[in-house]
């Protein structure tokens, strides 16, 4: 029931936002809706009895994940708790709504990140008071609603509809600034994502058709698909998976389908970019996980892994190429998103411990990206530019945002003690453990190149002295512009030093769910 409520929050808020006349007070609907959303999410997750299956605790010498890491190098994946997909895996409300364990993780991320972005947006919109923001607020809330629906439904078709809805609702957000470049970004975003998503629809059809061929009653319900998967027709199933992978991969920003991503992230307002690279593409990754799960259950996991690893490394390589010497801060962060989607795909492809790492990485990457984009937003507002020659000495100009940006960079490149370090460590561990030494080597080499490329830009932006020329703006670090960034980064830091048992339960539960063969 509460899942239904969760779905309904956003439409209601959207309507409200549309009705509120005052341009000044309208933005406050965002944090309000966000808080309600988050509380409902909390209720849903807790009522789901998440993590009940695993009893982790700091009592063990090796810590939570340490216990999950299996000692001998040749023993394969960890012992998984038996989960019957669909049923105990998620709460089945009706034929339409249901929440599978991976969904819970992403839901948590989306909701928390939106809270941060919502508060930030209030300050952001206040600065351009003359700019009408009705469309913005409406679309932002609709965007959240669409993502929530993608996560909370259990029907492949409805997932597709919702996913397309995210594209449509977020397009006006990119166009918010009404500049030529933002039009261009919006156009490409719409065209490429729509085409990609269309392929995903075809993929869903293929999967259903694969069932028909073998005389099964076709259905788009995830649970049914998972049950029937073993008997389905392999060729159509695999073709369907490829289409789903390419389709949702486009949305997720896997290279070479990523080309819309830097434009969209670069041109949209910072809170929107933050939601894009923190929440939206993680949601797309959720879809990829679900598709892979079907293939895995069908006993064709090896094939899926091959493709995922290939695309993952390809994405990292693309990102590395474009991050070296990147002058535009936001585009650089966008490519970093491509890189991390690649890492996620890699982790999913490797499976086992690496999958656990990937689940954790969804969270760590999401929050770090949020912090990074929001802080760059502050820098953008202070300098009136987001490219290198203009932006210099951010540490002097904006002590707080500059420092947070620098720390966020260290976090996203996997420096201890931040969260991404732990998750990447686990993924690396899984890769080496599975004996993919070559893959691990490529992985590390790309990480190094990316670090160098990114570091050059970030340090150039943060260090040194503030250029005398350039547009002066009165912008200073404030409560609404600084606190959300700080909060995101603190979460990232906490995930690196201490994972709360409930969250850990979520991750472990999700991993087991994806690893299980009914």
């Amino acid at each position: 029931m509460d899942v239904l409520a969760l779905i309904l929050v956003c439409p209601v808020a959207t309507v409200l936002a549309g009705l509120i006349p005052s341009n000044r007070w309208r933005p406050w609907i965002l944090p309000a809706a966000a808080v309600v959303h988050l509380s409902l999410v909390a209720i849903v997750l807790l009522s789901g009895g998440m993590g009940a299956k695993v009893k982790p605790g700091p009592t063990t010498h090796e810590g939570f994940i340490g216990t999950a890491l299996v000692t001998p190098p040749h023993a394969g994946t960890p012992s998984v708790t038996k989960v019957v997909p669909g049923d105990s895996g998620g709460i089945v409300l009706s034929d339409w709504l249901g929440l599978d364990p991976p969904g819970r993780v992403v839901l948590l991320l989306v909701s928390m990140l939106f809270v941060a972005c919502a508060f930030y947006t209030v300050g952001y919109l206040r600065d351009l008071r003359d700019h009408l923001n009705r469309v913005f607020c409406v679309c932002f809330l609709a965007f959240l609603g669409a993502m929530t629906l993608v996560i909370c439904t259990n029907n492949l078709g409805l997932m597709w509809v919702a996913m397309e809805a995210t594209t449509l609702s977020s397009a006006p957000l990119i166009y918010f600034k009404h500049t030529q470049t933002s039009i261009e970004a919006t156009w490409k975003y719409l065209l490429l994502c729509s085409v990609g998503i269309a392929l995903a629809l075809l993929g869903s059809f293929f999967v259903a058709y694969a069932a028909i061929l073998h005389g099964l009653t076709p259905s788009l319900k995830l649970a049914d698909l998972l049950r029937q998967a073993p008997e389905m027709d392999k060729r159509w199933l695999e073709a369907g998976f490829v289409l789903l992978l390419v389709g949702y991969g486009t949305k997720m920003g896997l290279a070479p389908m990523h080309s819309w991503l830097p434009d969209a992230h670069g041109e949209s307002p910072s809170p929107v970019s933050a939601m894009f690279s923190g929440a939206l593409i993680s949601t797309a990754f959720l879809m990829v996980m679900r598709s892979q799960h079907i293939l895995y259950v069908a006993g064709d996991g090896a094939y899926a892994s091959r493709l995922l690893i290939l695309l993952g490394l390809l994405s990292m390589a693309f990102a590395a190429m474009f991050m070296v010497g990147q002058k535009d801060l936001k585009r650089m962060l966008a490519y970093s998103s491509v890189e991390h989607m690649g890492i996620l795909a890699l982790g999913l492809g490797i499976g086992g411990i690496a999958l656990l790492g990937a689940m954790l990485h969804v969270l760590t990457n999401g929050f770090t990206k949020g912090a990074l984009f929001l802080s760059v937003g502050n820098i953008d507002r202070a300098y009136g530019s987001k490219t290198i020659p203009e932006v210099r000495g951010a540490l002097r100009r904006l002590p707080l945002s500059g420092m947070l940006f620098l720390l966020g960079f260290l976090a996203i490149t996997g420096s201890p003690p931040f969260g991404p370090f732990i998750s990447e460590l686990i993924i690396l561990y899984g890769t080496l453990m599975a004996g993919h030494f070559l893959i691990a080597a490529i992985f590390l080499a790309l990480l190094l190149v990316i670090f160098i490329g990114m570091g050059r830009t970030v340090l150039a932006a943060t260090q040194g002295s503030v250029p005398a020329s350039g547009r002066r703006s009165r912008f200073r670090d404030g409560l609404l512009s600084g606190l959300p960034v700080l909060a995101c980064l603190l979460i990232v830091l906490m995930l690196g030093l201490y994972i709360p048992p409930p969250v850990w339960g979520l991750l472990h539960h999700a991993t087991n769910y994806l690893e299980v063969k009914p």
Partner: protein
Amino acid sequence: MNLLILIMTAIGLICSGVPGLFYHRRSATGQHVAMAINVVASAVGMAAVLFHDIPRVAAEGWHPVCSLPIGKLALSLDDMSAWFLLPIFFISALGSVYGLGYWPQRKHPVDGRKLRLFWGLMSGAMVLVVLAANSVWFLIAWEIMALSGYFLLTTEDGRPEVRQSGWVYFIATHLATLCLIVFFVMLRIYSGSFHLWPRALVGLPVGVLTALFLLGLIGFGFKAGLVPLHVWLPAGHANAPSHVSALFSGVMLNMGIYGIMRLVVMTGNPPLWWGVVLISVGMLSAFSAITWAMAQRDFKRLLAYSSIENIGIITTGLGLAVLGLSVDQPIWVALGLGGALLHTLNHSLFKPLLFMGAGGMIHSAKTRDMESLGGLAARMPAVFCVMLLGSAAIAALPPLNGFVSEMLIYLGFFQTLHGSAAATWAAWVVPALALVGAVALMTFVKLTATCFVGQPRSAAAAGAHDPAATMLWPMILLAAACVLVGAFPVLLVGLLDHAIAAWVPSHRSIPLVSIINFWWLTALALPLMICAAGIAWWIHRCRRSVPETIIGTWDCGYAAPSGRMQYTGSSLMQTMAVIFRRILWRHEQPPEVHGIFPRPADYACNTPDPLLDRVAEPVLKKVGQILESARILQSGSAQLYMVYILLILLILLMTR
């Protein structure tokens, strides 16, 4: 018990810079608070190390309530960690005092607070690195150390050359961390635990063991600055504030050595070739680095290269100890490891001394170029005395501390002639060490002579003066420590023996005292010091009663010699520079002189770092260009992007 004290001191150090943040950027209170906290914490820490009993083997340390996602925050303390803790506390405290005079908040309102914050952070992080008993915890402390090191190095990030050197350091340290991450992950996979430090791994495949050794060696070697991984070191030390350079080369390099020392005893009995690798890398570093040091003009670069040389000597000693373990020659272990450990300590006494002295020179003469100094001995006598002493110590001259440790290493290599026949070749290290020692002597004669004696070569040098007491006293203390260790090594031998015993507890170790009678060194040091005192008295008497006539230097008939006409450091090196030109690989523009009455010509010559400026940077630039040329893939045309999607779709469909 004292582990808990040490944790407290570490926390104290980490926090020492924080109160300063809340004071006004021009108020001097913050720096005094930071200094006070730092000194007190360090004093407590040293007391805890020196006067408490340390568990002979690493105790299963401290169990906090909260725990990392991976592994517990386990800390432990044994005699080897204790040995490495001493310099951390000592230098950190002295440096913070020195900073009062050298980097006062008044003069540096912009970056003073930042510097002190990261100073404390780095010192505390290093304490934790040494205490860490869990690899993830180790990595965290390690990275905090490395990053705060970066921020210390780029204190004056307004200057482009500082940013450049900081950038090189940044890449180097990240490479190191990556190697260490892989190292610890593999260790976890094959040892089944994140617990540090394993001393008896069994049943590892040879390939894995080799990979572990090389990864660890590279990772820690970067930090220690072994050639060819030293690229970040010279420019970094040169461009950091002097007391920061002191902390770097006095303490941070030790962390790399610490890691290597722990790493080589993973299995309890390392293979012979590990020792061979360590010895050859060590000698390579020592020799090439001292040759490069000899040719420098910037005295801080010179000191930085000599740090590499000393690290090389330490590594060589460690290599001997590894040989000793693998062929079971406890006496090699005792001498090699003892020499290495003692030299580590000594290096963190005289190198900070020299860097602080260099800071004094920069402070009053405002230049790092030796060739424009000279005659400072008369103008800053106190600094001259401590620098002279430091130079003598680092050139391993008796009766100072450098000699004791180098003697141990020499004797160890002489020992390889007897005992096992497995490693008689190792004796060839002895002449190499002798050569290195001679070049080092030359280098430091050059340093002291060019900077201090003779006549000033520039107005700045002529106007130099001794720095304030806050800068002098740390140097004097360090100098005293050098003399003390040199004259009474027996004071430290007890600790040293414990540390050696703690290296591989299972291995029976011979106490150094049973090999060498250290009292002889004292007995020889005393007469030397007595006649030094006599000389001082005699000079004093000469100064008072002036019977002897004072005239100008004999000028061979040329009556107007100026300071610029003195023999410079470069000319002092000329012959050597020609002999070792292959190693130096310096830029040289000889003047073209032709005609009967040649027009004025000038000669330019500088010695960049061969690996960094001649190899690494050009290669990286090339790679960068190649990558940038790949930009055409993202040409901005939506149609093209659509084609990408179609292509990948077809390719993936084909892969079935």
